[in-house]
């Protein structure tokens, strides 16, 4: 059933399906209903990280050293936790500057340096070649094995085959054609490839499902679950040793840690990861799901790696079958044709996904950061005069894709056979790790300079070439093997695999240590010793402080010069086409309430910057800068001027912070003043009230005194009885007047603090008895029954005896006043507890409404007013009483319900008085 034609047909049908998905996604994107605007698609597209290396190579690695495949996935899980901090910043910078690739990012950060962008591109292309060759090797090998079904035959060394019969070459060519159709059908100003991302996300699902299927088949189909599989593996000494892999391996933990670090950098700085994570990102918030979903994907695709590896070792003892192919050969050996085909498609998914995204990312870099800056400077080409350059850009990219895949194939022919899949991939990881210092330093350290990044990259890459690429070529027989064993010119110290005598580590760890030392060392040392130029200063500030600069136009601050709007328009149109250019200008004009091309607008710094950013999206920052400079006459800013602008900006920030603080302080002061003013007004009102109330209270008795006096004066014939009655009223009103004035004076003294207080030991029982005796007459007149419940002894309190009598008099006379009805009753209770005495005076009068419970204690309040319409006292008594009780540390309150009497209570502390 598994004829080569059937396999090829299935493969092409699958690629066709991918293309259909991409086409559909592009259509949806054009209609404004993007399918990739989803955190799930974003997370799946990140899984382009899992390539043929993961699909076939992990098992191979696991079969040789057990645990070595895991750091490649644990590293990303750890670093992705920092994406919230790091990647959000990179995303923000990339969006604001229309960054289209890794090379563009680094070039842009270090002063839009075309040189730096070119170096990064070269490193990326050379560094990634082994990785691409790995994919070609995996696809061609899996194809060659599958066509031999039902036999299981390892493919011959491809070097032995004539080139035309080499499957890998055909794979490379088909993938190149497919990538070209995929990624370079048209030019997008933002370098978004929505269709590609959708297809990649789909491929991630396919490869995961295929791998899980074969894993489940091996674990539960061939064997009886994990327990059975591992138990059988443990019976073999070689496999039992793999279950405790760190034992007896010198530097085992160090190798492990370095592989983790290496993959942390790879997940951020592999060109294809940068492409899907940064360039193709449509919404920063997708990170939220991706930070756990993507690690979960990696966990899932690794669960069955070890079972398949052990299953393969058990099934094919003696090393006749390459462990890298176990994923495919196990189902074949079990005669599972469909599963084997599914595995092949899964591996094809993993490989094509990687190749498509990687070559698109690399071709963008080659075009924008390597070739365009050179071509634009070559005046003999007269590129500046060509009307439409979009065709040229697409042509360069297509050429670059073919070239990169052919170079990948060349590496496969030259060196690919000597290594297992994972080892090939790790060489690429080590190459892209060289970008880490320049990238991370670039976004967190303003001091990093162009020269520092340049020398760091060259030094790190140099060490990579010497310690990783050179040995790979030597082992494949292209260089004398003696170079590895005795060092160049017989200098043992310079042996590429034991540089300066550092031995005992694996090759990757060894290379990483030396290359990072060289890279970081040169980056820091050169950055610190040579001062940066104006452009670098500006870009450093824009990148590192991206969260404090607001708006796309912040870069415009640094531009001075003259330009013309039509010239800028034509420039933009030449690179991105006239329709997108018109749309871009229209947007800019509309933001200012104008219309393009009708309304005239001075081409100011904002417009120039806007055009440069748009252009950067198509041809990279460095080229965009060159092009804009060709039509706009820019005054070159010196370092001092840039520094001045930056200082100015930071001073403005500081100043505005200070202003904000000042205004906050002022606001607080104003609030305080307003409160004080309100208090004063309240006091003033109280004083007015007081005066008017007192006056009113004084006038009432005075009026009646005057009236009766006039009657007596005018009418000498008045009857004696009548006269006596009038004089009685006169005396009573005069007495009321006196009492009122006494109370007002008393209150004034208390409030002003001038009252004289005698402090003696007072027995409250005596106070109550004395008061009752003094009021006996009154009680009898009003026929009030008084019941006093006094304990035999109470602790004395520290107070003023006369004042206490005054309080009791007040409460009792109030009680008498309100004890109306058939059987007026006043109960007095004295109790001791909780360190204080409590005195209750209860009447059975009409009671007080709950809302008046506090009001009765205020000045001049007379509850009687509301009920009967006539005043029953001065309204000062209760107020003064409370003031007295509080003076001696006590409290006074009332409990009452309307219609059931009132109970006035107060407490006095029995301890040491104040």
């Amino acid at each position: 059933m598994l004829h080569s034609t059937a396999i090829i047909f299935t493969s092409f049908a699958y690629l066709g399906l991918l293309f259909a998905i991409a086409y559909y996604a592009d259509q949806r994107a054009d209609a404004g209903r993007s399918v990739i605007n989803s955190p799930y698609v974003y997370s799946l597209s990140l899984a382009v990280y899992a390539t043929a290396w993961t699909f076939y190579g992990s098992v191979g690695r696991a079969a040789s050293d057990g645990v070595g495949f895991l750091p490649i996935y644990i590293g990303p899980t750890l670093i992705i936790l920092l994406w919230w901090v790091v990647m959000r910043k990179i995303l923000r910078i990339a969006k604001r500057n229309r960054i289209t690739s890794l090379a563009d990012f680094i070039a842009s950060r270090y002063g839009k340096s075309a040189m730096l962008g070119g170096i990064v591109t070269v490193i990326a292309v050379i560094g990634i070649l082994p990785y691409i060759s790995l994919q070609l090797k995996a696809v061609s090998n899996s194809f060659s094995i599958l066509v031999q079904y039902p036999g299981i035959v390892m493919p011959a060394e491809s070097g032995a085959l004539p080139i035309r019969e080499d499957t890998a070459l055909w794979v490379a060519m088909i993938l190149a054609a497919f990538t070209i159709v995929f990624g370079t059908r048209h030019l997008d100003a933002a370098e978004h490839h929505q269709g590609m991302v959708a297809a990649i996300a789909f491929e991630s699902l396919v490869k995961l499902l295929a791998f899980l299927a074969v894993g489940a088949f091996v674990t539960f189909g061939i064997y009886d679950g994990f327990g059975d599989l591992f138990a059988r593996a443990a019976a073999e000494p070689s496999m039992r040793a793999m279950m405790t892999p760190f034992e007896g391996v010198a530097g085992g933990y160090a190798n492990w840690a370095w592989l983790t670090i290496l993959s942390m950098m790879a997940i951020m700085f592999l060109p294809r990861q940068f492409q899907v994570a940064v360039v193709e990102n449509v919404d920063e918030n997708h990170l939220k799901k991706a930070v756990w979903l993507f690690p979960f994907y990696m966990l899932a695709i690794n669960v069955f790696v070890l079972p398949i590896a052990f299953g393969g070792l058990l099934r094919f003892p003696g090393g006749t079958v390459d462990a890298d192919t176990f994923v495919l050969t196990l189902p074949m050996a079990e005669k599972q044709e469909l599963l084997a085909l599914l595995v092949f498609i899964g591996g094809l998914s993993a490989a094509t996904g990687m190749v498509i995204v990687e070559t698109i990312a690399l071709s963008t870099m080659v075009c924008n950061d390597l070739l365009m800056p050179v071509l634009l400077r070559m005046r003999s080409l007269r590129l500046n005069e060509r009307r439409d350059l979009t065709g040229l850009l697409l042509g360069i990219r297509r050429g670059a894709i073919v070239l990169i895949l052919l170079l990948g194939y060349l590496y496969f022919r030259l060196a690919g056979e000597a290594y297992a899949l994972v080892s090939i991939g790790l060489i690429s990881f080590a190459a892209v790790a060289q970008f880490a210092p320049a990238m991370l330093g670039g976004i967190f350290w303003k001091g990093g300079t162009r020269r520092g990044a340049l020398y760091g990259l060259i030094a790190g890459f140099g060490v990579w070439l010497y310690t990783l690429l050179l040995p790979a070529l030597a082992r494949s027989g292209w260089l004398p093997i003696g170079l590895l064993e005795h060092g160049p010119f017989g200098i043992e110290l310079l042996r590429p695999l034991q540089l300066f005598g550092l031995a005992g580590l694996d090759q990757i760890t060894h290379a990483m240590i030396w290359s990072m030392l060289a890279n970081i060392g040169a980056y820091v040392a050169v950055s610190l010793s040579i001062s940066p130029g104006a452009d670098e200063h500006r870009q450093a500030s824009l990148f590192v402080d991206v969260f404090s600069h607001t708006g796309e136009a912040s870069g415009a601050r640094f531009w001075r010069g003259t330009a013309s709007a039509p010239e800028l328009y034509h420039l933009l149109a030449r690179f991105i086409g006239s329709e997108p250019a018109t749309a871009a200008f229209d947007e800019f004009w509309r933001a200012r309430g104008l219309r393009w091309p009708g309304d005239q607008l001075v081409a100011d710094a904002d417009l120039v910057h806007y055009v440069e950013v748009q252009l950067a999206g198509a041809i990279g920052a460095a080229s965009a800068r060159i092009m804009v400079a060709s039509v706009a006459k820019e005054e070159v800013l010196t370092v001092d001027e840039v520094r001045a602008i930056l200082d100015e900006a930071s001073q403005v920030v500081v100043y505005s912070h200070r202003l904000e603080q000042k205004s906050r302080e002022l606001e607080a002061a104003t609030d305080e003043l307003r409160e004080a003013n309100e208090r004063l007004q309240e006091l003033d009102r109280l004083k007015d009230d007081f005066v008017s109330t007192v006056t009113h209270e004084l006038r009432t008795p005075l009026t009646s005194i005057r009236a009766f006096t006039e009657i007596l004066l005018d009418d000498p014939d008045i009857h004696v009885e009548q006269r006596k009655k009038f004089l009685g009223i006169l005396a009573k009103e005069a007495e009321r007047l006196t009492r009122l004035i006494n109370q007002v004076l008393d209150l004034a003294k208390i409030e002003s603090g001038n009252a004289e207080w005698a402090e003696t030991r007072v027995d409250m029982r005596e106070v109550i008895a004395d008061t009752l005796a003094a009021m006996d007459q009154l009680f009898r007149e009003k026929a009030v029954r008084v019941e006093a419940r006094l304990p035999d002894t109470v602790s004395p309190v520290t107070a003023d005896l006369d004042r206490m009598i005054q309080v009791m008099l007040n409460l009792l006379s109030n009680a008498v006043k309100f004890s109306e009805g058939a059987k007026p009753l006043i109960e007095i209770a004295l109790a001791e507890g909780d360190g204080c005495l409590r005195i209750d005076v209860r009447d059975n009068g009409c009671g007080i409404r709950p809302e008046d419970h506090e009001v009765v204690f205020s000045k001049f309040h007379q509850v009687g007013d509301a009920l009967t319409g006539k005043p029953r006292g001065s309204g000062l008594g209760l107020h003064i009483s409370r003031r007295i009780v509080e003076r001696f540390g006590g409290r006074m309150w009332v409990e009452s319900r309307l219609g059931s009497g009132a109970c006035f209570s107060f407490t006095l502390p029995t301890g040491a008085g104040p």
Partner: protein
Amino acid sequence: MSNRKRTSQRFVALCMLGVLLFNYPILALFNVPGTLFGVPVLYAYMFIAWGALIALTALVVRADG
């Protein structure tokens, strides 16, 4: 402390935890013969710790809202 800042710090703390869990000397504790649920101890530990780390990450994200 703003919500965003707290979330960032939680992520950094989780990362540190992960670096501890997947390095010497913690790894050495599990580099022993024997099985857990039928799986060699070291591998069982790695996948459990890995899964726990992912679950914690999801929790932190959810708490951020």
